[in-house]
């Protein structure tokens, strides 16, 4: 493949920036080294109902103080100090930012999220942080359904085992003949 010339490279960077800003199905935002917001993509605008123009330049921890009360600010500080990338799973955190739920049937007060917080590097220097947020509502819905099916299968198997075992008199209790509803 031919190497990219400078103008190709700039166009590519512009295209990638546009994709991250407008088209990606994940929340992406960046801060500078003082944790002031420097980038806020369309997903973030939609789900926080905060336009980029309003939040860019504002301190992230002032805008979302619960990041401090839940001690998530430490993850930002270690990204800035040590260059560490942190994964925040839905299973252990629930969510990164308290955003409105997109799937009310899950019965959750906030959109369930998985996220990554990492350093923004310029060569060897750490110049800020970048955060990605994934809405895992659809995945949770699928997993809930899978759990329900696995449990129904387990109950059906247990019942079938009971039916196969002869009782003391050799008779099978009539109630055990029923298979559980699917």
């Amino acid at each position: 493949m031919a190497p990219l010339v400078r103008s190709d490279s700039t166009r590519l960077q512009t295209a990638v920036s546009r994709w991250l800003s407008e088209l990606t199905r994940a929340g992406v935002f960046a801060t500078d080294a003082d944790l002031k917001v420097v980038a806020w993509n369309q997903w973030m605008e939609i789900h926080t109902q905060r336009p980029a123009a309003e939040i860019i330049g504002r301190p992230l921890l002032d805008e979302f103080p619960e990041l401090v009360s839940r001690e998530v600010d430490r993850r930002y500080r270690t990204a800035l100090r040590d260059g560490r990338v942190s994964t925040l799973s839905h299973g252990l955190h629930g969510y990164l930012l308290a955003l409105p739920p997109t799937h009310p049937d899950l019965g959750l007060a906030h959109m369930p999220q998985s996220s990554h917080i990492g350093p923004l590097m310029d060569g060897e220097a750490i110049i800020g942080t970048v955060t990605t947020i994934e809405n895992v509502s659809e995945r949770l819905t699928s997993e809930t359904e899978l759990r329900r099916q696995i449990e129904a299968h387990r109950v059906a198997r247990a019942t079938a085992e009971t039916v196969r075992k002869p009782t003391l008199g050799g008779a099978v209790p009539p109630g055990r003949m029923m298979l559980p509803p699917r």
Partner: protein
Amino acid sequence: MKQLTVGQTDALVELLNIAFGRAAASLSKLTGHRVQLEVPQITMCPIDELSVYLRPMIQGEVASVHQIFSGSVVGDAFMLLDGQSAAILKELLTNEPAMPLEIDASAREVVTEVGNILLNACLGTFGNVLKVQVSFSVPHLTLESLEGVVGSLAVGQEGLRHALIVHAAFRLRGSSLTGYVVIVLSVASIDRLVRAVDQWASEQT
């Protein structure tokens, strides 16, 4: 083959226990359960002997959390758990029954976060001892055979590399399970690390 002296092994275990203590404190805070993490044993071997060493201890498919680190020290770091231990760990940490890891993305993600916390603690400690800044890649979990994990290490790498294998004993809610942290470094980086550990140990006495 690179061998550690008894003194170097003791110093590394002490350092890693400090790192594991930090990781355990983070996990305890996150989950609300008391999580204990200890380093009962460490060993070092060339990477082509890694699967031979680990095979008796890890059966079946392996849940492997992988992070690449770079900077003035470059290498690969893994947390390895057998599939069953990974599912049990998720259950103990979240109070939610795990499904087989292949179909349970939430469980895979929790295990990834545990690996991320543990690997960050270990590599952060090594970075402090070496007085170098280490950059990390985003952690990535795979489910594959032990040979597959080890095979992926050999691809595109030049020069002799060694693996530092750290046994990681988790204790929580009356259960215990063992995972393995594997840090793969070039021989030159291992020598540098060992010298820095020697220096650290001499400063402690």
